[in-house]
């Protein structure tokens, strides 16, 4: 059953406004945090073992400790781009509890000593942007933002910046390039953003849920936070379940919660007469789990890694037997080909190739070695580019083809004769 810590008061509509948020112990954690020393807070977050909730799962405390000791202005950026297909948890958090995010950001900014922070929100979220803007205005009016916050001598400014529709801006350095007004193309790493990020200043980029969980750590303390979840991945996680389930939605459960319970208890199982075929556990770029693996896996970083998949952004996409895996692969490849930023050659040309191959397999005009070629192309795209989008495109291909081999070959062998595709030999209008 659900353990509501972050989402405890999401059902109350007045939680959105400042006084409604203050009624439920709002901004007390900020008062408490301002009394502590910044390094103490970083230490607490590191002890609590809070791991990044955006997709990489990198421990937040460790990331904060990478900041170099120089006098460059430090920036804190909240990554609210949420482009990963299947994920809709950040949107609900910002709609229902914007102040939770703002309070978490002020505490984090105080911990890393950054005078300025941005919330990079997704371009399509017009309504959420209005809600968060309203919340920021309220915070400024009540001396929770601006100079000398709550008379503590710490001053901090916050601004909201909207993207314009690019999945690649969910990647740290892609987001930073977009914030700098350039094309949202990822930057070369090293130097990492913690050392040289926004306008070559040290920058920390964290997900909405990660920053919101900081308030929980301050309120319950390290062992209070570690009460939930497993030893290596503590705390609770917001899972957005979608696909062929009766009650899709966001469910907050402690990490290590068995996937079977989430699908069949919390979400009311599959539609009647349908059998579970596969589950994508962590957003579209996570390798897929077939039915048996999905039944036996617990939702935390380590157990999913052992099954060859990853927790990612915690978006569970349930697939029942009425869908064809080849068609779903084509939809995903279409997504990655449309969203590839085109900077590195393996990803720019590779995603196009994967899409055309999956199209030809789906249309039945492919032969057996096209399926093998699909795997070869994906394996040679992985790990060779500036950002992880080529890996995100390769993981579904490799897991779909290896775990549902017979479905792909059945599509391919339906076309027995190797048709010579005179595809390139046609007179086309050029210039």
């Amino acid at each position: 059953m659900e353990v509501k810590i972050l989402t405890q008061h999401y059902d109350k509509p007045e939680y959105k406004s400042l006084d409604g948020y203050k009624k439920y112990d709002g901004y007390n954690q900020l008062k408490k945090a301002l009394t502590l020393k910044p390094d103490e807070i970083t230490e607490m977050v590191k002890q609590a073992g809070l791991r990044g909730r955006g997709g990489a799962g990198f421990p937040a405390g460790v990331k904060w400790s990478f900041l170099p000791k120089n006098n460059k202005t430090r920036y804190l950026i909240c990554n609210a781009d949420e482009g990963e297909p299947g994920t809709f948890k950040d949107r609900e958090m910002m709609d229902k509890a914007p102040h939770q995010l703002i309070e978490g950001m002020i505490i984090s900014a105080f911990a890393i000593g950054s005078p300025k922070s941005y919330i990079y929100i997704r371009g399509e979220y017009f309504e959420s942007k209005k809600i968060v803007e309203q919340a920021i205005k309220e915070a400024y009016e009540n001396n929770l933002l601006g100079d000398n916050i709550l008379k503590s001598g710490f001053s901090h400014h916050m601004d909201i910046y909207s993207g314009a529709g690019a999945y690649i801006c969910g990647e740290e350095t892609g987001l930073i390039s977009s914030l700098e007004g350039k094309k949202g193309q990822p930057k070369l790493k090293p130097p990492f953003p913690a050392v040289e990020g926004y306008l070559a200043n040290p920058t920390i980029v964290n997900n909405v849920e990660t920053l919101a969980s900081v308030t929980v750590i301050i309120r319950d303390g390290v062992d209070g936070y570690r009460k939930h979840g497993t030893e290596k991945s503590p705390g609770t996680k917001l899972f957005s379940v979608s696909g062929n389930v009766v009650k899709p939605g966001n469910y907050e459960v402690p990490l290590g919660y068995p996937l079977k319970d989430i699908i069949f208890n919390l979400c009311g199982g599959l539609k009647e007469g349908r059998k579970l075929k596969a589950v994508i556990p962590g957003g579209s770029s996570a390798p897929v789990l077939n039915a048996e693996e999905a039944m036996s896996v617990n939702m935390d970083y380590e157990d999913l890694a052992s099954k060859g998949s990853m927790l990612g952004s915690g978006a569970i996409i349930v697939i029942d037997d009425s869908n064809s895996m080849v068609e779903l692969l084509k939809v995903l490849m279409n997504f990655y080909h449309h969203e590839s930023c085109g900077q590195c050659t393996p990803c720019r040309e590779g995603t196009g190739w994967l899409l055309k191959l999956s199209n030809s397999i789906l249309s039945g005009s492919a032969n057996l070695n096209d399926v093998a070629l699909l795997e070869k192309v994906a394996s040679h795209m992985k790990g060779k580019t500036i950002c992880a989008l080529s890996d995100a495109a390769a993981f579904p291909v490799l897991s779909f083809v290896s775990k549902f081999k017979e479905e792909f070959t059945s599509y391919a062998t339906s076309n027995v004769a190797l048709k010579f595709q005179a595809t390139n030999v046609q007179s086309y209008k050029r210039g």
Partner: protein
Amino acid sequence: MKVNRNIKTYFLLSTFSGMKFTFFKMLKNLFNKKKMITLNYPEEKYKYSSRFKGTHVLTVKKDGSLRCTACMLCATNCPAQCIKITADEHKDSSVEKYPISYEIDILRCVYCGFCEEACPVDAIRMGPEWQTPDKNGSKFNYDIRYLAYRPQLKGGVESSLDDKERHSWGI
């Protein structure tokens, strides 16, 4: 009896025995013409295979323009360096580059076929003709008009990949 050497020399016995061979061959040819080994050139001509390496031909596209893109690979590959091409910009931007002059100095050509092998777009082929006499020396510098549009090419050049099939693809 030993035939005396003098009789052989005076009555030319060896000559007549030699002529005996040709005389009977002539009779045989007179009575069944078909078995005759020799052709009566020029009425009958020997039929060479389609891969015969004769005078060059510049193949043409469906609309009659040259297939050659002036990429100079034949001129580079030619051991006798007898091909001279000057290229220019084509008006239609989908063609982009075409030869305004393409000359083969046939007197220096050794008919090795390297140009045919080097051509990436199968623009130059070695045609079936081989009798190409001429009166004065200057005529042996074949230009585009002779190589691509000479009257003997009326029916198109039959070769392993005939033009008709490619024209059907529209290129």
